[in-house]
């Protein structure tokens, strides 16, 4: 089989909203050759293509200061506040761009954009599901971006410490692809462990793992405001939680009680997604599961809005018999997903990573850069695209190390030669069994996490190296499975390292510790060892700071108030 070599000024890895914006903006900033590579199809893969119809965008007429404060607080004060400011300033411009590309945001009869409640106080725009990324895909082509679809990137190419492109293979015919690039932007999303709901089982953290191998610093996921999401439990239906609660959907526990007001009296069902998931976990832990989403009281107008914004999820609800005509006919059992693992690359305000020549945006950048959600991923892509184009103009001609390419090529195809190896499915299931239980990464305890780490280390040592593939489709699945295992290790180890409750809850450390833990956790692979270190959040130059040095996590406080837990010797004990 022959190799296919591409040369470009800017290489963008990923066909979601972050990558597509980065590619478009790199072209607009003067990069002559921009190439976007995607293991699926640009605009038809990743989370962006299946996002739940809600585009959270602050407008200049909104109370931006209040939003700024909320965003910092919801991110547990770990967010890069200069980046939060950039996002607030850019988001409405990004929205204008999107409309010029043909994204149809829902409008009122008067023609004015319709803004609807989603999570928190912010109002968002609605769009018709897949239309958004279809318009983005076309805009990228119209701007002269070259798209290479069905090519999975597996490694970065480096020369004298600089990233000079990437390598990968065509998942259909197996051809080896070499991408020689002046600068590379990683936008391959995060890892969602192939969990619920449909439409995101292709994001497995491959890019992060490849960057870690190339020497990049990656960061912990704690600062992500929503560690999980929640969806229909036993059917493949989704997404839409924000949209459903925005239209009046209510979460109920197994006794038919509304419970969100106990945990977030102000925002109730419209609390941020992460808070909702934690509250569900606490209800289940108290024996009040399972959890239901009740939309039976929604009127046809509200259901109509849901149908418009979520055509695929609505069709799924209809097929399963939950949605008949314009009524939801019964409460639907819901479940939280496996944790989102936004183990992303450490980046600066311009989305430059710790490796020269490599930028990262969207969900493959660290959570503190505030890159999750369509709006945030979009503004991060814009900034990264502009900055990377400048880097490419100033950096010299990239040099490829032939010996490195040969070695990567050799290693890549090994699973195809293996006989009697391990099935990708086996590794996927093994990893899911470790990370999915809500008592591991949502409601945490050091002892449970240590056990989970031992299990993941065992998978990494004894299963991942033996993965086998029958053809190039399975080769992709094998790489995805081993990426998932590595991401689980990174996520669990950083979670264990953080001895406090900040965004997630720890039973053994129930307090939020603003004296010792206003820190980011950085990880770097050094040979066999994962080196974990911390970096102070530069609070001194930030606008918003936590008010108290230490306090019981608000959700533990709520649980204590209702008598579900007691704090004894500094730890949680269940009533």
């Amino acid at each position, binding site marked *: 089989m022959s190799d296919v070599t591409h040369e470009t000024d800017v290489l963008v890895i990923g066909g979601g909203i972050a990558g597509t914006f980065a590619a478009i903006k790199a072209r607009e900033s003067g990069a002559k050759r921009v190439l976007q590579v995607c293991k*699926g*199809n640009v605009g*038809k*893969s*990743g989370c962006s*293509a*299946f996002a739940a119809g809600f585009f959270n965008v602050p407008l200049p007429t909104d109370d931006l200061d209040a939003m700024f404060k909320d965003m910092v607080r919801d991110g547990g004060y770990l967010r890069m506040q200069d980046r939060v400011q950039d996002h607030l300033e850019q988001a409405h411009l990004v929205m204008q761009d999107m409309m010029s590309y043909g994204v149809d945001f829902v409008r009122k009869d008067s023609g004015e954009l319709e803004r609807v409640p989603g999570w928190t106080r912010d109002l968002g725009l609605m769009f018709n599901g*897949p239309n958004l990324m279809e318009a983005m895909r076309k805009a990228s082509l119209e701007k002269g971006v070259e798209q290479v*679809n*069905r090519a999975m990137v597996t490694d970065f190419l480096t020369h004298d410490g600089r990233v000079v492109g990437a390598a990968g293979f065509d*998942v*259909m015919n197996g051809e080896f692809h070499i991408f020689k690039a002046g600068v590379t932007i990683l936008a391959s999303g995060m890892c969602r462990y*192939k*969990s*619920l709901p*449909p*439409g*995101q*089982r*292709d994001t497995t953290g491959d890019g992060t793992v490849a960057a870690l191998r190339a020497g990049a610093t990656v960061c912990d996921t704690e600062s992500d405001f929503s560690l*999980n999401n929640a969806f229909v*439990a036993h*059917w*493949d*239906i989704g997404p839409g939680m924000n949209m459903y609660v925005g239209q009046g959907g209510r979460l109920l526990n197994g006794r038919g009680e509304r419970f969100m007001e106990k945990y977030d009296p102000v925002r109730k069902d419209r609390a941020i997604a992460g808070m909702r998931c934690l509250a569900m*976990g606490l209800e*289940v832990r108290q024996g009040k*599961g*399972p959890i239901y989403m009740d939309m039976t009281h929604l009127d046809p107008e509200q259901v109509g809005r849901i149908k418009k914004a979520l*055509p*695929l999820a609505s*069709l*799924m609800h209809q*097929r*399963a018999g939950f949605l008949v005509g314009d009524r939801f006919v019964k409460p639907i059992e819901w*479940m*939280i*997903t*496996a944790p989102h693992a936004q183990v992303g690359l450490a980046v600066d305000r311009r989305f430059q990573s710790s490796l020269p020549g490599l930028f990262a945006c969207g969900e493959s950048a660290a959570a503190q850069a505030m890159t999750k959600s369509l709006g945030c991923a979009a503004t991060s892509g814009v900034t990264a695209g502009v900055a990377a184009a400048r880097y490419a103009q100033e950096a010299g001609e990239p040099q490829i190390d032939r010996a490195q390419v040969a070695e990567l090529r050799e290693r890549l195809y090994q699973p195809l030669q293996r006989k009697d190896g391990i099935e990708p*499915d086996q590794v996927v*299931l093994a990893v*899911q*069994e470790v990370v*999915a*239980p*809500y008592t591991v990464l*949502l409601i945490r305890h050091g002892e449970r996490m240590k056990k989970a780490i031992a299990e993941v280390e065992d998978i990494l040592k004894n299963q991942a190296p033996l993965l086998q593939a029958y053809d190039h*489709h399975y080769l*992709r*699945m094998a790489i995805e499975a081993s990426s998932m295992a590595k991401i689980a290790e990174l996520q669990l180890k950083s979670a264990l390292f953080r001895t406090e409750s900040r965004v997630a809850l720890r039973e053994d450390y129930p307090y939020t510790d603003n004296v010792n833990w206003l820190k980011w956790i950085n990880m770097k692979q050094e040979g066999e060892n994962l080196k974990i270190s911390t970096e102070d959040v530069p609070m001194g130059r930030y606008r918003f700071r936590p008010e108290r040095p230490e306090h019981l996590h608000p959700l533990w406080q709520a649980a204590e108030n209702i008598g579900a837990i007691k704090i004894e010797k500094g730890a949680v004990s269940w009533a």
Partner: protein
Amino acid sequence: MGVRRIDWELCDGCEICVDYCPMDVLRMDRETNKVYIKYLRDCQGCFLCERECPQDAIYCFPVRERRIPLAW
């Protein structure tokens, strides 16, 4: 289950679904010029193929093809 049926009476072999499937589940049979389900277990049930097929030849159903360990 996800993708459940491809109606070969209707399929004209345009390959749009093959191109768009994020999980690479569908393939073209070059002999018959029809699409078939090659990697069912990897289907993520996203309904994209059904939505995009210009001939309405594809039918999906929202039941999981593989067991997914749940949170509780």
